[in-house]
């Protein structure tokens, strides 16, 4: 009886999902033919185009929208992650953090961890630094970076990771510093505009000619010719977000591992 009830519930829930998607298809929200949506075209055409007033001077539309057009929103999203980690720290309390020998640390993972550590960090930094040019960005780079200290933590234990400089106090400090710096970078144009008496916006990147004449530079001329493109705040914010996310993940994993992992 119980079993049949469960099956009926399953079928009903599938039907619910199908009904939802039927609505989406019927309302032409999901469709294969409907291209050239105005909002999409606005972003796709204006973000990489230096002559447009809404430009970010960056070929990467997603990261530009995340940090430029929607920067205020993303800042609070980063804060949510930050608060979650603070919450984890508080909920963890002050339990005794006894170091136990790792059960999986045979010689093979010990050496391979050391070998892959720098490779993963190099890749993560590359992903974060090219966030405004290729897919990726601070968040993605940070989540790749977290592999390296986590692997080290699983194999060698917490005290050796702390010996490498990944101490919880330092990580928390870096994380907070990065969040503070993100808000500082976001409000710097506003502050200048306030001081000089011209109009400016929170998380403004490039100058927006009819509305606001000031903003960050997008590139610098290199002494050996050519330009070095950093798209105003995008690269700075990506690097800061990279710091915030990588240290935050590392910290959360260290804390959870020392609470839930070290038992035998």
């Amino acid at each position, binding site marked *: 009886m119980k079993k049949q009830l469960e099956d009926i519930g399953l079928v009903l829930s599938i039907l619910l999902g199908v009904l939802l998607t039927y609505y989406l298809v019927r309302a032409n929200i999901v469709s294969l033919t409907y291209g050239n949506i105005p909002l999409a075209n606005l972003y796709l055409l204006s973000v990489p185009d230096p002559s447009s007033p809404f430009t970010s001077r960056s070929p990467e539309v*997603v990261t530009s929208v995340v940090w430029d057009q929607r920067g205020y929103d993303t800042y609070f999203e980063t804060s949510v992650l930050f608060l979650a980690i603070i919450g984890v720290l508080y909920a963890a309390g002050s339990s005794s953090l006894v170091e136990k020998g790792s059960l999986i640390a045979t010689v093979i993972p010990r050496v391979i961890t050391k070998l892959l550590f720098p490779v993963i960090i190099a890749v993560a930094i590359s992903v974060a630094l090219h966030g405004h040019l290729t*897919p*990726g960005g601070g968040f993605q780079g940070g989540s790749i970076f977290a592999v390296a200290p986590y692997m080290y933590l699983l194999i060698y234990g917490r005290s050796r990771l702390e010996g490498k400089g990944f101490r919880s106090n330092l990580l928390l400090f870096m994380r907070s510093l990065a969040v503070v710096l993100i808000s500082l970078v976001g409000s710097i144009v506003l502050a200048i505009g306030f001081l000089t008496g011209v109009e400016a916006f929170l998380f403004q990147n490039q100058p927006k000619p009819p509305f606001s004449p000031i903003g960050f530079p997008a590139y610098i001329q290199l002494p050996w010719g050519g330009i070095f493109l950093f798209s105003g705040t995008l690269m700075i914010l990506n690097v800061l977000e990279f710091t915030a996310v990588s240290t935050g993940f590392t910290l959360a994993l260290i804390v959870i591992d020392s609470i*839930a992992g070290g038992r035998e």
Partner: protein
Amino acid sequence: MSPLIILLLSAFSSVMALVATIKILYERDVLKTIIISGVESLFYSIILAAFLAPDLLIAYIAIGLGLNSAILLYALRGGERFEEAA
């Protein structure tokens, strides 16, 4: 230009994801369900690649496959591994 094989692959993946969810529903071993949810994120990541969302792809793999599984395994250490019928 024929993305047919790619569409076919992602259609297969989405069907397998549905199968995996039903499997999760009926599986008693919670450790297995955590691994299946990792597989599910692989299935979805192929859909993300096919529908051209590379930014999400990276974030999604790192989180769905790795971090979620690791964190859920920590949660599972708090209690029993097998679910009994209610």
